[in-house]
């Protein structure tokens, strides 16, 4: 590899210096398996995350079958049902969404969008993926160990999580905790990479305020994740010690089923604080990359700069910072000191303001745009609908006294599925349709894509919108069957059947997506380098898919922000970030 020639006049950024030392693969194994190329790692992360996500999807089918047709599927007993909800929740939140947004999209897009050759610590980046993969394997091992996976609910609240009478208490809870610890270690390695690459690896001319919002979202989310995951780490280690060594961090004196346990003096609430100190930022760790990506999708496909870019950046940072002082809104009815309710309700509702600003700016970007209703754009529109819906029901749950009747009911289930399940997943789909041409050089099938969108979007809305009302009636969440409650009218059973049938259809539609994904690698329409006529750097690579080192001989130089769409006077309706300014006539 030839040494890179530097423009002597300009300041050197780390991205340029590092290329000389860039690791170059020598064999098939180091190129595709133990690869240190962020793009390959990104694909590895994505495939593993989607694969484990499919497992979680099947689990959700099983749960819905039980809720829609109670008693029909006798193998779904309460134990199995709780194991399904626990694994479904944990996989979706951590092993799918967090891993896919940060490990998948982060790895692929950060170097490419910033004009770097790779992540700054490629070896650590590789380790990050393999530790994540190990974490997934350990997690899945729970299904095959005696007693099965843990059924403690994804929140793993002690004392219940480690006691008998909770499924999976022999092995399931252990592998769950070990897997989480591994995940956090692996994530920290990757996360340091993403953050330092954004800090150090930007191409010449790429100031922070020229970064696409995708990078802002991933960057802010990674910083938050690095600060928040230690809380889960501490909680998991402590619970592991409680379970294995018999310490009493979270275990008070207990009589379980008539048996006096040796524990004494622990505090279950302490775990809840640790868990939600991680758990609430986690919501935004998933949401912020989605915010960023959807901003870029809307801007590109509406051929218009994102409205109020500066406000969007400030809002992202503000949401990131505020999300660390709202965690106890998950604990309004946990028995903590009631005075906290005033503080946390206020901070929680304040977060609604920057979030609302983001929503306004998305729809205002559409105003007087030139909207191409491509598949990524459809998903972006679907995201706005579901996110607004889920975000607004969050105002119910964040307002402490309204939360009292609604917490721990199906209303909560409907709310968080809409806001951090459906909405981010729609962005993930949109992003895959958007960047797939860059990753493979071919377009995903359009007809299947549209079918996939309509079934997924409308189906998901039909599943979760009515579910709020089941919760409003007072049906608690995490119930194996909804029966024997005098206040629930019989018609609710019909509604549950309906939800289940729609859920099965939506799940089946994902198979069409998977087929599209695989089929188009070979048979998709060739995409060319920049099929969407987008401005950001990843579309300006010399090869598609980008080769190792991304940029060939010379690194790109950035002359403008990421949103020069439909600039008055320009011949094209987009100006790539690396297009030099035309000399002004004097």
């Amino acid at each position, binding site marked *: 590899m030839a040494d890179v020639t530097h423009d002597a006049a300009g300041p050197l950024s780390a991205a340029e210096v590092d290329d000389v030392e860039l690791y170059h693969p020598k064999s098939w194994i180091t190129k595709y398996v133990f690869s240190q190329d962020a793009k390959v790692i990104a694909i590895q992360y994505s495939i593993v995350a989607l694969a484990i996500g499919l497992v979680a999807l099947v689990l959700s089918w099983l749960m819905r079958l039980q809720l829609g047709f109670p008693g029909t599927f006798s193998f779904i007993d309460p134990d199995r049902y709780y194991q399904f909800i626990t694994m479904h929740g944990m996989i979706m939140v951590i092993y799918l969404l967090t891993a896919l947004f940060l490990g998948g999209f982060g790895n692929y897009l950060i170097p490419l969008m910033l004009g770097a050759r790779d992540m700054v610590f490629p070896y650590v980046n590789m380790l990050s993926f393999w530790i994540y993969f190990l974490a997934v394997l350990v997690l899945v091992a729970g299904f095959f160990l005696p007693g099965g996976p843990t059924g403690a609910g994804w929140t793993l609240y002690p004392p219940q999580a480690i006691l008998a009478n909770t499924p999976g208490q022999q092995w399931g809870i252990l592998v769950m905790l070990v897997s989480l610890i591994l995940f956090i270690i692996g994530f920290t390695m990757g996360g340091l990479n993403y953050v330092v690459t954004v800090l150090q690896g930007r191409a010449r001319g790429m100031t922070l305020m020229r970064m696409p919002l995708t990078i802002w979202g991933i960057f802010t989310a990674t910083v938050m994740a690095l600060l928040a995951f230690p809380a889960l780490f501490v909680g998991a280690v402590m619970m592991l010690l409680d379970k294995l060594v018999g310490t009493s961090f979270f275990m008070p004196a207990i009589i379980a089923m008539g048996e006096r346990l040796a524990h004494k003096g622990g505090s279950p609430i302490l775990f809840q604080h640790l868990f939600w100190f991680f758990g609430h930022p986690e919501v935004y760790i998933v949401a912020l990359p989605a915010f960023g990506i959807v901003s870029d999708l809307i801007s590109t496909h509406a051929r218009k700069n994102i409205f109020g870019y500066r406000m969007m950046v400030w809002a992202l940072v503000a949401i990131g910072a505020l999300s660390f002082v709202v965690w106890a809104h998950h604990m309004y009815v946990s028995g903590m000191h009631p005075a906290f309710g005033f503080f946390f309700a206020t901070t929680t509702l304040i977060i609604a303001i920057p979030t609302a600003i983001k929503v306004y700016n998305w729809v*205002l970007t*559409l105003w007087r745009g030139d909207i191409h209703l491509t598949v990524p754009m459809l998903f972006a529109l679907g995201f706005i609908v579901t996110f607004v819906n889920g975000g607004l*029901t969050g105002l119910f749950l964040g*307002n402490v006294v309204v939360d009292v009747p609604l917490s721990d009911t199906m209303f909560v289930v409907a709310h968080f599925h809409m806001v951090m399940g459906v909405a981010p997943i729609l962005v993930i789909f949109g992003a895959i349709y958007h960047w797939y041409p860059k990753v493979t050089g071919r377009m995903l099938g359009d007809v299947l894509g549209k079918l996939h969108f309509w079934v997924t979007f409308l189906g998901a809305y039909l599943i979760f919108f009515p579910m709020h009302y089941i919760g409003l009636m007072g049906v608690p969440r995490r119930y194996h069957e909804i029966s024997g409650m005098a206040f629930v009218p019989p018609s609710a059973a019909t509604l549950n059947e309906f939800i289940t049938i729609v859920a099965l259809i939506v799940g089946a539609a994902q198979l069409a997506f998977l087929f599209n994904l695989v089929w188009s690698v070979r048979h998709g329409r060739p995409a060319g380098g920049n099929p969407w006529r987008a401005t950001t750097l990843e579309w300006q690579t010399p090869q598609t898919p980008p080769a190792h080192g991304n940029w060939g001989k010379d690194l790109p130089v950035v002359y403008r922000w990421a949103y020069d769409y439909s600039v008055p006077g320009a011949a094209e309706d987009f100006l790539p970030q690396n297009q030099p300014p035309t000399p002004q006539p004097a």
Partner: protein
Amino acid sequence: MGVAIVLALVVIGSVVFHFLSPWWWTPIASNWGYIDDTIIITFWITGVVFAAVVLFMAYCVLRFRHREGNRAAYEPENKRLEWWLAVGTGVGVAAMLAPGLVVWHQFVTVPKDATIVEVVAQQWQWAYRLPGADGRIGASDVAHITPENPLGIDPKDPHGQDDVVIQGDNLHLPLGKPVKMLLRAVDVLHNFYVPEFRAKMDMIPGSVTYYWFTPTRAGTFDVLCAELCGTGHTFMRGNVVVEPEGNYQAWLQQQKTFAQLQAPASTQAKN
């Protein structure tokens, strides 16, 4: 065109479902009508915002969809508009938060004349304890729990002797009198939840939590556990009966006190 219509239909369908569907909250049976009012305020504000945003989006998609030769407008930002929207949102948020905090203040301020009812949860059943003639309940601790004393009432505490212990039976409450529910658990987290009362709170082994309410409607209501507590969580049920004072007193007379329950046990032990 199609996209815009579907987006509009999503809004219309949601609103129609909200008003016409048979699934709504169960009629209230406590004094927490204010909570329901706050929910209604929140429904109106959020509903208007949802409809406005999605309909605006539908209009944009209809009006500004790509046609040959179209070009988008160039407008990086509009500070005035953005600030107006932010301030408007702030007002909307305050309109939901302020009543919420006022009602929360009532929710956590227990009236002085509230009578005490203790609920003790264990996997997967409810037990209750009412103060005896002295109006106080005795001390308790898991250390005192034995098969004869399942609630762990301190046998040495004189206040505990006349406590009324209710096991394996429904809780009765007098109509129209404020009660303070003291919540205890002996094994894992539970949550004493009666949908008609609109109140709930977790029960934590090792500490005592509480909430208060005034039953305002006579009837028999379901008691549910609202915090995952193991395999039997779904089936941890009970009933609470709200009845006029006279019926309540008649029921209360039939219940046994802690001392009465202990007496046969100690005679047996002596034999």
